[in-house]
């Protein structure tokens, strides 16, 4: 099982701060999220500017089209655009 975390506006759109899913690749993650989440939540996650981190490292490519695999107990996080300082 992998843990998928949602931060800030994405957490509010999804309604949970994390979910656990069975997925070993990003395509499987996408279909698992599409099955499980509302249309509004999916729209928020699939929006431009949203970045994905795997085990606290940013994925260099676009998560929406990337085919990478993910480790068996990976921590995945969805991050909206940041606003520090």
């Amino acid at each position: 099982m992998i843990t998928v975390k949602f931060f800030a506006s994405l957490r509010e759109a999804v309604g949970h701060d994390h979910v656990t899913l069975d997925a070993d690749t990003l395509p499987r993650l996408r279909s698992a999220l599409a099955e499980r989440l509302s249309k509004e939540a999916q729209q928020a996650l699939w929006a431009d500017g949203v970045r994905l981190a795997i085990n606290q490292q940013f994925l260099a490519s676009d998560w929406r089209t990337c085919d990478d695999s993910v480790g068996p107990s990976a921590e995945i996080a969805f991050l909206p655009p940041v606003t520090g300082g």
Partner: protein
Amino acid sequence: MHRVIQVQQQDFELAEHYEMIRQHCGEAVGAIAAFVGLVRDHNSHAGDGGTVGSLALEHYPGMTESSICQIVDEAEQRWPLLAVTVIHRVGELKPTDQIVLVVVASAHRSAAFAAAEFIMDYLKTRAIFWKKETSDQGVTWVESTLGDQQRASAWSDQAKSSDFA
């Protein structure tokens, strides 16, 4: 180089961190630049600046600290630094509350000033924080402003166009 990077809910004391850096630097130090960012009472959205009642800052424990570490690494590559302290607060904050502290020590003032400004500009655009504003116009997640992005990208333009260090 001595470095302290902390993300915390509690407030910080500039004098305490200044003293700590001064103790660590020894005799090589010639300049310490310090910056404290405070919560403004007006929001940053152009035109309709409502009065901000409070801010809520959120972070990703672990990843936020490493994003700040990377910014400090870059500053260290550009300037000869002796010590850097970055404290960033999270949680509920009100106007005039302290939100961020950057203290930089170097042998010379130009490096200390420049590195402190560089670290702040990159904190605004690259460090992993999210700000939610509650104002008289409602509750909104703040978006990074174009001005902030331009300030940060000006540093990389400068690196490309010269050997400035």
